[in-house]
């Protein structure tokens, strides 16, 4: 790394300001003014539209295996989704996913 101290703080400061601007954008500026109904409809799908896409590459092409699909990770992901979906409880999904994942790693380690 060849940046000067001032340059590093510049990066940190501008990243902080930019990130806050992104987060403040709609919530801060729109407040309780009405948004178009179509936009409101789309926004209701935000969580299911962002997170699956964010996670999918990590599940199918994990960096830990050099991008090779790994059965243990895929099965653990399915277990997490299935348990969280059935129970409607985030914790149950996380529990099932983590247990499946480490059990899977342990079993494949033995083979």
């Amino acid at each position, binding site marked *: *790394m060849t940046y000067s101290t001032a340059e590093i703080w510049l990066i940190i400061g501008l990243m902080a300001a*930019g990130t806050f601007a992104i987060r*403040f954008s709609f919530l801060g500026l*729109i407040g309780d003014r009405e948004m178009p109904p179509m936009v409101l409809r789309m926004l*209701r799908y935000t*969580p*299911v539209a962002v997170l699956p896409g964010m996670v999918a590459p990590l599940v199918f092409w994990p960096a830990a295996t050099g991008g090779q699909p790994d059965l243990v990770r895929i099965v653990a*992901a399915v277990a997490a989704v299935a348990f969280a979906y059935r129970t409607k409880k985030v*914790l149950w*999904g996380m529990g099932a996913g983590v247990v499946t994942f480490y059990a899977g790693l342990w079993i494949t380690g033995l083979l």
Partner: protein
Amino acid sequence: MTAATDKSAFWMGLRDGLPFVFIVVPFAILFGVVAIDAGLSLAQTLGFTILVIAGAAQFAAVQLMLDNAAIGFVLLAALAVNLRMAMYSAALVPYLGAAPLWQRALISYLNFDQSYMMSIAKFEETPEMSVPDRTAYFLGVATAIAPLWCVATLVGALVGKAIPEAFAIDFVLPIAFLSMVAPMLRTLAHVAAALVSIAVSMVLIGLPSGSGLLIAALCAMGTGVMVESWMERARG
């Protein structure tokens, strides 16, 4: 709305945020280790964590700084990683838009994946919640996570030893996110949106710093609305 209910909403949020300790702590430690290894000072490492408070973007920035990328490029790439939070910001408007400006500013500062996801799930599940209760709940979740994110970064920076790869903590984050999103798959429209999000983001994986994800998310939102209106028409 009385202060008593605000308070219990805050505690409820705090309690619901606690499980994320197990995810946030290892990642924060890892960031501390990576940042110090990369050559940042202790103050700079904490500056990142406290001022930016966005894990994925921080890792992206440090990675690019290791390659001595141009400052403009570091900023552009790291902020692109955070653009999904503009969607979170917009999605919170119907629930928190009526809160006072300073509270909305505070919520914006603390609006990261976990606090957003946990809160939006709660707000959808209990539409009768008042705006002060929602604010208190959101801040409760964030309080369970944000201070620990900073403390654990400090620990990582001071101890400076990576978590052994055998623990494979890389996969705890995907499991947590999947567990958060699965209960929200309430209708066919939500499922269709999730599938489109997965498919498009994997096809566009080659695009730089999360821009593929943004396109995938927009496609997925459009799909959700489309399927929703089809289903309404089918029902007559």
